[in-house]
């Protein structure tokens, strides 16, 4: 039993942290946030150069084939730097889906381009009213000619406006199937907006979108289990991103409390604030523990056991996101409220992470049901 990183992992982690500190300084990020696309293609290319877009790519395509700990380290950096690029959506979720389900032809075409940062693919699965229930899919794919016609609604598809391809889930007969749909395919329309943490997202409407047989990812009707399973990988990654952001925000808050003076002394000398920051630290450490566990178990074969780990991790991390986010803003005072200062950006990203892949209450309930069945 140990919590040590290998030398290579240590180096990878260091290089990501250095990259974030050097290339993603807060002022530079502000520019990216304000830009038309809301992400930086230059940064994306840089992440590709570092090999970070290939962590989920199978080894035969030059990637690392999963690499849970490396993914965790990458996500720590993404969280610390508040990266706006679609790392989680494309390099983790979509790449893992394609690894599990993609045909040799699809993998051969997409993986080199995705690993090089030339193609962005995102999953369009959630639908209005589904509320974290991954099994609720109403979008339909009906047989049409040699292929399919897709119709339905997908909601809050984060990074859809930057995606070259959408991985659209749709009902085919009794099962759910996945399709690769180009963003500009006829019948696809995006209603784009910004999410609370400044990312570009869209509600996607599909009306009679034609997809050929080659667009089907995996066997017809066999996608849902894999989508559910990859959601666990996404939870582990989101927890690691949260940990990176939580650590940075705690550090920022402690530093601020040492420099900000009131009544002639730093506010960090007040015990009322010290104890609140200690509570924040406890949340961060507990979140880190569960993030380790989630990453270590993200390739666990016992799916029920794995679901329990992910729910537990999401509950601990979700509560940490809320506590640390709220307390950081409070301790920063008025500065914490501003767009100008970084605390509010962390606050918003942490709130967004809590709402992603099942919120705290969703996972608490799921864990409780799961426990009752187990006793």
């Amino acid at each position: 039993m140990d919590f040590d990183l290998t030398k290579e992992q240590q180096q990878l982690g260091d290089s990501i942290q250095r990259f974030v500190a050097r290339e993603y300084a807060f002022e530079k990020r502000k520019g990216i946030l304000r830009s038309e696309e809301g992400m930086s293609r230059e940064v994306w290319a840089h992440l590709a150069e570092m090999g970070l877009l290939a962590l989920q790519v199978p080894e035969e395509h030059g990637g690392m084939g999963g690499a849970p700990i490396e993914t965790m380290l990458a996500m720590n950096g993404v969280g610390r730097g508040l990266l706006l690029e679609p790392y989680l959506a494309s390099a983790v979720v979509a790449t893992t889906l394609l690894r599990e389900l993609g045909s040799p032809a699809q993998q051969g075409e997409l993986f080199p381009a995705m690993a090089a940062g030339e193609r962005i693919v995102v999953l369009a699965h959630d639908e209005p009213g589904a509320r974290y229930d991954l099994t609720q899919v109403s979008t339909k794919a009906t047989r049409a000619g040699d292929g399919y016609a897709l119709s339905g609604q997908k909601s809050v598809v984060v990074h859809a406006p930057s995606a070259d391809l959408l991985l659209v889930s749709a009902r085919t007969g009794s099962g759910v199937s996945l399709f690769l749909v180009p963003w500009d395919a006829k019948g696809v329309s995006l209603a784009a907006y910004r999410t609370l943490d400044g990312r570009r997202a869209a509600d996607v409407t599909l009306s009679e979108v034609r997809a050929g047989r080659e667009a089907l990812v995996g066997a017809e009707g066999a996608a849902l289990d894999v989508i559910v399973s990859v959601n666990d990988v996404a939870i582990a990654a989101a927890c690691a991103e949260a940990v990176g952001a939580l650590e940075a925000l705690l550090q920022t808050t402690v530093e601020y409390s040492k420099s900000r003076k009131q009544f002639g002394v730093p506010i960090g000398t007040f015990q009322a604030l010290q104890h609140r920051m200690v509570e924040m630290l406890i949340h961060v450490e507990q979140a880190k523990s569960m993030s380790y566990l989630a990453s270590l178990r993200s390739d666990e074969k016992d799916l029920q056991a794995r679901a329990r780990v992910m729910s537990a991790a999401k509950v601990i991390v979700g509560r940490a996101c809320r506590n640390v986010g709220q307390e950081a803003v409070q301790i920063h005072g008025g500065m914490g409220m501003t767009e100008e200062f970084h605390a509010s950006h962390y606050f918003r990203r942490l709130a967004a992470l809590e709402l992603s892949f099942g919120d705290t209450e969703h996972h608490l309930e799921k864990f409780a049901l799961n426990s009752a069945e187990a006793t």
Partner: protein
Amino acid sequence: MDLSFTPEENAFRQAVRSFVQSRLPADIQKRTLEGRKQTHDDYKRWHRLLYEQGWGAPTWPKEYGGPGWGAVEQYIFEEESAAAGAPLLSPFGLKMVGPVIYTFGSDAQKERFLPRIRSAEHSWCQGYSEPGSGSDLASLKTRAERRGDGYVVNGQKTWITHAQYADYIFCLVRTDPKAKQQQGISFLLIDMKTPGITVRPIVTMDGGKEINEVFFEDVHVPVENRVGEENAGWTYAKFLLGHERTNIAGVAVSKRELRRLKHIASEERKNGKPLIEDPAFAARIAQVEIDLWALEITNLRVVSAEKEKRAPGPEVSLLKIKGTEIQQALTELMMLARGPSALGLLNDADAFRPAAAYCNLRKTSIYGGSNEIQKNIISRTILGL
């Protein structure tokens, strides 16, 4: 990064498990698993059985008669013992004064005291707090004046757990009233049978008589019962406070108590169904279970750092805070699970009394350095505030 135990560690776990299963007396086991109180003799009975196995001092190094287990083995031992319903061994000799004696004591002290702690012949208690000195321990006033070949001790100690059973008390006393607070304190080992010592029980709100006041009136203590240097007692006290680490979170016991909570919640009924299926109550259990799981991993992080001889730092304070919060939450939920019937069980001394346990466990966030003191420690040492 790897959370699995080695084959050797798993074999060790099996050995502990089969020992506890075969040797733990059934009556003691039943009482623990049902949450009932053990008597002092029961604790001793279990300690003696461990001693016969060579495990009388599980956390001690070989040279002082311990098994020489590392942090992981100690963790596994605690986990298996607690899970099987073995009572916790009294910490005052084994985890507190023992390590102080073998680290700072004289050869004569080592020879005289260590074997008797290990074999459960001597029971110990801890004389730290005073009526005016709680969290501010260094303000203590109990006076030890040098006279001839010994000290004459006068003063009062309070909150002394199990003083009524103890053969010895280790005490912090003021030997130099002129020195700055921490610098005039010495560490004495005092025979509880010495004339001038009076023990008076303090009844706590659960009806329990665990704790006592201990009065010292012209108590003569031979100088050879002083540990280390005169006026250096604070150093030994700090060492002691930082020594017991692997089990400070109480994860193993809390895991057992969580199982008991689930058992109670499956016996009780609400709206015609087992309480454990009530969504609101199930969510409260789930929250504690998840908190405990995270604490277990945090604890393992500390154990693994210790294994590699990296001294665990102030994160131990974190384990204490979170561990005690969880212990308290578990007794609270057991009481709530029993519902109105929890009110009626206060008087039956031999039954599990969830309301009494709820009252009793409030102590955990107060003793061993209150949770607020732990927060001050974290604030100063980890956050640098």
